């Protein structure tokens, strides 16, 4: 067995990590299935404290506010606290951080938990916007990947910008592309091509971004 250097080792770790993630996903999906939520899906009422009185904009404002607060807290945690510093150190050079006495294994397990917790916050905010059902995470999962890849993996600023870019591009594409196509093509062609291109737009955006900036828009330093 040749001594694996760090790139293959990281790739191997990422792979195993991904496989474990898949397995967990399968288990969670099946477990939810056992809970008999297979049918339809329920639209939850928004929590009472969201009713701050913005009329139609309530769900939007309600999810914007906690989202912004969490993003700000996360930025402070990673950029300004000691534990954030240790996490960044561990990410940029695992061996060195270990040698300096950081318990990387424990720290990254904790980090994984925090990530899952943040994801739960996002899920709670999305509940009233989308329908709550077993597969609701699947579409968001891929979109979340797209967001962090466009923004740059490991960059919180990038994730914020990436999510805005992806969200706006997707919405504008779905709203206006069919109309735009209608101006230039036959209605039959436009009604077929418009929605198709609109759903591809996000991925096209990602491919273009990665082609010109293979590390994403805001590459994490280190």
């Amino acid at each position, binding site marked *: 067995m*040749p001594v*694996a*250097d760090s*790139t*293959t080792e*990281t*790739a*191997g770790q*990422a*792979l*195993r990590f*991904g*496989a*474990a993630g*898949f*397995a*967990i*996903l*399968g*288990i969670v*999906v*099946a*477990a939810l*299935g*056992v809970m008999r939520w297979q049918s339809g899906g329920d639209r939850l009422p928004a929590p009472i404290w969201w009713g701050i009185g913005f009329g139609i904009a309530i769900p939007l404002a309600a999810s914007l506010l906690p989202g912004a607060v969490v993003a700000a807290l996360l930025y402070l945690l990673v950029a300004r606290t000691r534990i954030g510093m240790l996490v960044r150190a561990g990410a940029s050079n695992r061996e060195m951080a270990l040698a300096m006495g950081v318990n990387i294994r424990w720290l990254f397990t904790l980090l994984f938990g925090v990530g899952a917790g943040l994801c739960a916050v996002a899920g709670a905010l999305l509940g009233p916007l989308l329908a709550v059902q077993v597969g609701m995470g699947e579409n968001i999962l*891929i979109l979340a*990947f*797209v967001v962090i*890849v466009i923004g740059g*993996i490991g960059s919180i600023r990038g994730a914020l910008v990436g999510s805005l870019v992806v969200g706006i591009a997707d919405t504008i594409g779905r709203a206006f592309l069919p109309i735009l196509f209608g101006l230039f093509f036959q209605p039959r062609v436009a009604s*077929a*091509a418009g*929605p*198709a291109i609109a*759903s*591809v737009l996000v*991925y*096209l955006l*990602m*491919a273009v971004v*990665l*082609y010109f900036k*293979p*590390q*994403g828009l805001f590459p994490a330093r280190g």
Partner: protein
Amino acid sequence: MRRAAPWIVLALALAFPLAMQAEHQTYYLSFASRIFVYALAATSLNLILGYGGMISFGHAAFVGTGAYVSSILLSEGVASAWIGWPAAIAASALAALAIGAVSLRTRGAYFIMITLAFAQMMFFLVNSMKAYGGDEGLSLRERASVGLGVDLGSDVAFYYTALAALAAGLYGLHRLAHSRFGRVIQAIRENEERAEAIGFPVYRHKLACFVIAGAAAGLAGALLASHGKYVNPNVLHWTHSGTLMVMVILGGVGQLWGGVIGAAGLLGLEDLIANHRMEWLAAMFPNYQQHASLGVGIVLLAIVLFAPQGIAGLARGRRA
């Protein structure tokens, strides 16, 4: 013993239809063909993932391209497999060339995501092809015909065709892995900078490897469409890429037999859970059979945690 093992497996596979015909069990003949087709697809993914170190999350795009090209030709009246399947292979190779040329500029997690992005694009494009079924898929009246007095419509003939394709794929991978090209690919996997410094054209080698894997996946796709006489856009969905990846990881990344063992293991396990009621398990969980993915998930988790080299790696570890 080690040299004889592949021949023993081949002999068993060749004799399998005779045993099944004696027992009148045609279901398992078709099931075995399905395993062979998936094994070919997983083996092609194993070439880039295990030997080349390129973690592609968009392999279903090439399987799907092959499946759709051969199906569209069939539905347009081109029945001959001698035209349909090479066309499928060529189309998939072309798709792999285009996707690989862009994707291979990136590394690591970015490469995973950009291959996924391209696969998703193909998924949505195929989904909107109203002329060829759109999201409802495309049903074929019959399988492709190969002439020579062989009727692929019969399960036995299709079984041997799929077996031949898989055997050719495995032999090709074996030869490739031990060729100069294969050595360079594995050197690039181990250390890209070093290979570059020695003077190998890294990008071109990776791209060639990617295209070969795409072409083999295209053949698997054409066989898959012919096998079920039906193809729908889900064959390009990212979960399908995930299934192929799971097969490779389950079987053994970078092991010659990894794809085969993984495909047989995963499909076999699903079939075992769904179609064979085990009383002792049913006593504890009355309707466990409706939740096959739960069992598959647990087994996969165990494999990843306790046998990081996959099932093929377990066997190899014992011997060493």
